[in-house]
């Protein structure tokens, strides 16, 4: 009898202790994330929301007074031919770089996944530009493309041809920006594809070889489907990176000639600091956030679905 009571008491006490620790383990420890939350709210969320407000005004960026003009800046945005030029460039930078980085990055990965000579060194060299500031990478390529004393024109002159001013030519300079951005970040795509390739079991290929499948068919039916997760990651990060492009444009063309190679981010900078058009710049910022959001989310969803199917 006594022992039963004892056990019961013990159990009750234990339950009490358990309840207490369980309860305390459930406590949210909110103070641990408070500093981080405060910083992000203050420096990202608050400005973002405030930007929505400024986009409804005609504020010039420095005066104390301004008027709320409703959606006027937005209707101006849609009528402004510069908007479409800049959006077109931004899409070229985002989608063009993504296309090239992925095709070339995948080819590099396929090559450097073979056991060939100079494999490690080549990987290092391809990856090196990733850690260099995009602004400075732009200057480095500027030495190549510059009209006056650029390496490209040195070759053309030596071959008796006329010098070209590629960076000032609006027909080609946007593509040169895509080219430099691709050159700089193709290493990221390569590394992610290499990791993807190495995670594919050799058994699949052995079985396919026994069935007499051609190299191309092996690539199409084994490599590509199993690489889908890597493709998703690469596409999403390259699209976001390309749509935000800023530094390389500053150092290669400065957005010129005129607005010809301007992206949304350099254009926004220009509107705010050089044209005192803060309300309009904020509107441009809202549009840019929307475009990045829509494109990156649809890319994510589209390729995620492919992954499931594969």
């Amino acid at each position, binding site marked *: 009898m006594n022992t039963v009571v004892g056990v019961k008491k013990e159990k009750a006490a234990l339950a009490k202790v358990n309840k207490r620790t369980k309860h305390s383990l459930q406590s949210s420890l909110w103070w641990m994330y408070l500093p981080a939350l405060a910083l992000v709210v203050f420096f990202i969320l608050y400005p973002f929301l405030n930007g929505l407000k*400024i986009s409804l005004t005609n504020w010039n960026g420095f005066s104390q007074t301004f008027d709320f003009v409703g959606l006027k800046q937005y209707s101006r945005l849609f009528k402004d031919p510069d908007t479409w030029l800049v959006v077109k460039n931004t899409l070229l930078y985002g989608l063009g770089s993504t296309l090239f980085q992925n095709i070339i990055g995948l080819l590099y990965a396929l090559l450097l996944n073979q056991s060939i000579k*100079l494999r490690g060194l080549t990987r290092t060299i391809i990856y090196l530009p990733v850690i260099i500031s995009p602004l400075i990478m732009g200057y480095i390529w500027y030495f190549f493309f510059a009209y006056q004393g650029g390496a490209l024109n040195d070759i053309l002159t030596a071959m008796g041809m006329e010098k070209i001013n590629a960076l000032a030519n609006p027909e080609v300079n946007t593509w040169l920006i895509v080219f430099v951005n691709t050159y700089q970040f193709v290493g990221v795509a390569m590394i992610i594809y290499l990791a993807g390739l190495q995670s594919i079991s050799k058994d699949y290929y052995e079985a396919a070889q026994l069935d007499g499948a051609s190299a191309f068919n092996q690539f199409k039916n084994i490599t590509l489907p199993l690489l889908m997760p890597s493709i998703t990651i690469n596409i999403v990060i390259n699209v976001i990176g390309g749509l935000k492009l800023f530094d390389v444009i500053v150092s290669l063309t400065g957005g010129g000639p005129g607005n010809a190679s301007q992206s949304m981010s350099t254009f926004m900078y220009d509107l705010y600091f050089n044209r005192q058009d803060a309300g309009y710049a904020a509107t441009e910022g809202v549009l840019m956030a929307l475009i990045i959001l829509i494109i990156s989310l649809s890319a994510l969803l589209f390729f995620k679905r492919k992954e499931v199917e594969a």
Partner: protein
Amino acid sequence: MEKTNRKPKLFLSVIALIIALYHLVPFYILLTTAFKAKGDFSSKWIFPKQFSFDNFREAWEMANLGQSLWNTVIITFFSAGLLIILGSLAAYPLARRTTKANKLVYVFFIAVMVIPPLTALVPLYQLVVDIGMMNTRTIAVLNNVAAYLPLAIFLYAGFIRSTIPKELEEAAKMDGANTLSIFFRVVFPLLKPVTASILIISCVYIWNDYQFAIFFLQAEEVKTITVALSSFFGQNTSNLNLVAAAAIMAVAPMVILFLLLQKHFIQGLASGSVKG
């Protein structure tokens, strides 16, 4: 089998060599340009007969590289340190205490990752002016920390969920006055691999940052290396040899670190980009 493989292997090695050389072209041009004396307009494809280090000396002084390198070091150091401390602290409860509030806060951090901070440039600039922090290294640190905290928290939380045993916190009684010290003595050391990744990601991004720096660090005494270089370029467009020398000195620290710690760099940066 081996023999038939050799020829295509050799062919592939040659292709790899060509690709490597192509990727080195801009760096080669950078070197030949930087070592040519002022006014030497010979082809950029050949090195000068006499290597001139004058460009480096002159660029170092004219572009104020010493001061701007120091500013960059300070900003990178404090930003990365704060990111590690605040990020790991924040991720712990978000990964382990799944109360409703915590879930919401976590979703908020992830959602913020989608907003490029630059799209809020106008109001952010205004905010910085209002709180009187224009042209201070502090604002560069705070901006960078806020920009990369969501990513740091995301990486830390994922790591904590997948690798830190739950029993640990039960044993260590993570509640009460000494939670902080237990966190830093027991949990934090176990986060070393992900801390290394975050450290590398944030150092590379923050060291190379131009978008924030150009807006908030315009004064000579707070300029970072990228801002110093862009204004130096603006003054010397007709003297690219000087700019090339400055560019080499600007990228040298990061390039040397990369070559020394290559594996960690590639691993760290890859894990950071896998946030999608």
